[in-house]
């Protein structure tokens, strides 16, 4: 088999599997900060109980996130050695900064978060929770900076020494604040919040349906709902800004996202569609001229289409188009669910609306799916480049690695990750069924009296 394809499949598999976990730890970190703050300031034991339960879920997710994250740290070198030599100056710096500023903070204070309940004062524990949450957010900052530099390189120059060509930093801050990094960071973080909020909503809805841990579930749901509202709105806004950025800086990617072929013509916005790459057209439900309006403010202005790029410079259209539209549709469904929940809560019917709670339970999968689709849109949309406009993916491989070796590691990853995923779901399910610890009954009765 083709080593390029194998390496890309392996990278996609390992990063997508890894990316199930970090959004949850980032978002749950925020959930924990809110809950423990409420526990500290109200002294209500219910919030303490909530914090303890979600910390346990957090611990399980974090462990798998760490285990699968080590892979990513070394996979640039194993499979993409030429890329690593080319960008080490820049990409390596961001990764090292992530280690120094984020991982140490996160993993150090995680010890207190998980095991320090009786070792430190409640206030110190609360501070540790905040530091873990901060660390998780910092790690998103550096990795998104590194990834964004591959989309919109800045602050570098190309240096040639003999047969070796590489990018070197000229301006560190221009590299960090490259044109797309902040908007992509905001989009990633609101996605992470949404993912965790939906997880809390789902598990709480499950308890309400089972009529177990009622007070716990209601209070957890309220916290998650508040976060979900902010995250959903954030997703729409940052998604919109990101798309505008792509239109400006990566026109081939935008054209693939919308399946816009004609070199210079007013562009439509598809709601759903099927791409026919041979005929260079998309069949589906569309709003005429809407993409022109969104990018230029005028329904009739032309937008640069795929045909203005050489065939070898175009990303694959169908996969980018479908992932992008899938992500948007899921985002809208999530928004609809969250605002329905808010209205139901307003009318004091949320916790009794069985039909709606039944929708919330599987909804945990929606933001996860949207994260993955968004990632596919961003990375496949960047193709055929590994660093946009500078280095092609096909030129970035390790020269000393044979296809057989990649096939071997790919098979191993598939087996190990399947096992890990099955075990993760099994243990998560056990934890959920086991439920929060202690004094459930007392709290319920206290709440009724109050």
């Amino acid at each position, binding site marked *: 088999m083709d080593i390029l394809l194998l390496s890309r499949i392996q990278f996609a598999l390992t990063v997508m599997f890894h990316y199930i976990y970090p959004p949850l730890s980032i978002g749950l970190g925020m959930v924990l900060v809110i809950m423990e703050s409420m526990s500290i300031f109200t002294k209500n034991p219910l919030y303490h109980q909530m914090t303890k339960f979600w910390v346990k879920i957090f611990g399980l997710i974090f462990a798998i996130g760490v285990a699968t994250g080590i892979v990513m740290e070394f996979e640039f070198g194993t499979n993409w050695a030429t890329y690593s030599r080319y960008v080490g100056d820049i990409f390596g710096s961001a990764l090292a900064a992530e280690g120094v500023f984020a991982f140490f903070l996160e993993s150090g204070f995680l010890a207190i978060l998980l095991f320090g309940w009786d070792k430190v004062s409640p206030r110190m524990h609360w501070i540790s929770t905040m530091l873990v949450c901060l660390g998780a957010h910092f790690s998103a900052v550096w990795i998104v900076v590194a990834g964004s530099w591959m989309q919109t390189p800045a602050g570098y120059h190309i240096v040639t020494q003999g047969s070796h060509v590489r990018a070197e*930093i000229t301006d560190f801050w221009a590299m960090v604040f490259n044109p797309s990094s902040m908007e992509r960071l905001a989009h990633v973080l609101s996605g992470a919040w949404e993912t965790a909020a939906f997880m809390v909503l789902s598990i709480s809805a499950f308890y309400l349906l089972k009529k177990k841990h009622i007070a716990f579930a209601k209070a957890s749901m309220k916290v998650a709902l508040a976060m979900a509202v902010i995250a959903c709105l954030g997703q729409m806004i940052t998604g919109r800004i990101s798309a505008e950025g792509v239109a400006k800086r990566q026109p081939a990617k935008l054209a693939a996202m919308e399946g816009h072929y004609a070199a210079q013509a007013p562009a439509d916005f598809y709601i759903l569609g099927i791409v026919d790459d041979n005929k260079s057209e998309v069949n589906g439900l569309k709003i005429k001229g809407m993409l022109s309006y969104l990018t230029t403010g005028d329904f009739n202005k032309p937008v640069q289409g795929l045909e203005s790029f050489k065939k070898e410079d175009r990303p694959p259209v169908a996969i980018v188009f479908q992932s992008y539209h899938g992500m948007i549709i899921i985002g809208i469904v999530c928004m609809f669910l969250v605002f329905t929940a808010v209205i139901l809560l307003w009318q004091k019917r949320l916790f009794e609306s069985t039909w709606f709670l039944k929708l919330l339970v599987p909804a945990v999968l929606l933001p996860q799916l949207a994260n993955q689709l968004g990632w596919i849109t961003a990375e496949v949309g960047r193709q055929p480049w590994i660093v946009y406009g500078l280095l092609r993916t096909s030129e970035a491989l390790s020269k000393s690695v044979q296809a057989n070796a990649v096939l071997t590691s790919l098979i191993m990853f598939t087996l190990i990750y399947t096992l890990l995923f099955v075990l993760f779901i099994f243990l998560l399910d056990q934890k959920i069924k086991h439920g929060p610890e202690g004094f459930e009954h007392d709290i319920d009765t206290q709440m009724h009296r109050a």
Partner: protein
Amino acid sequence: MDLHLIWFILVGVLLAGYAILDGFDLGVGALHLFAKGDQERRLMINSIGPVWDGNEVWLVTGGGALFAAFPDVYATLASGFYLAVFLLIFALIFRAVAIEFRSKQASAVWRQSWDVAFSVASILSAFLFGVVIGNLIWGIPLGADKEFQGTFFGLLHPYALLTGVMVLSVCMMHGAIYVVMKTQGELHDKARGWVKNCIIFFMIMYVLLTMVTMLYVPKMVEHLKAYPILFLIPVVKLLVIANIPREIYHKRDFLAFLSSSVAIVLFMFLFGAGIFPNMVLSNPLPENSLTIYNASSSIKTLQTMFTIALIGMPVVLAYTISIYWIFRGKVKLDNHSY
């Protein structure tokens, strides 16, 4: 100042930090199956429970620093040792999830399976780190394009296997002392026995490896000959190593642990001084070696990264010390434990 040299030292510091810290928790893993019964094994795992994950961050950051400061070294080693790197990563994954998953079910089969996974993965990780070090001392075939030209099985030559076992013996000794320090009662007494056996195992490997290195890789001591003051290092190292059984005998467990930590740092120092200025020696064609000069990033990046290290590392040390301080003393099982 020579930034290349500074970064050679800084990467060394990060990896030495990793060797001291993960060294003992790999050692605890390697000894895990010698602990009998669920209670003892829980004590073993919980002795490293709050810290193993932070210890591994030293490797992740060391890897990141290598990528940033010496991209060619990172790229050549990771791609050249392709299967070995993934084997190591799989071992580290199994270790991590074994620690996390083991306690989540009460079934004996479940726990025993994770015990075996934890121990085998720890032994394999320590051994593979040693194999990598052995290859860096011995040299690997590199082309003029800085690319590895050998095979996976070519990496498993006798010298590399010997360093693999040597590193395993260091970790086991270090881990056994850690267990002695962190436990009390029956397990503590048992671990004292482990320490004795591990010291013997380590001494045999140490003498053997030193002799083989002198005979077959004499260039590892060239710098010592050039700067006789450096001979102090192996002398101090010998004294430190000799101090370990003495402290154990006097039941000053912490000082024994400190001694084995210092010994590890001195090993790393001698290793660094031995290979300097090469980072990856090319064998047979030494002119293709990757040095701290021909494999580094731009001066601008080395400078920027140095600033980051100056800001970040004191803070990192402060966290690390506070966490170890908070979790000091003998390990006790409570309802937050694994």
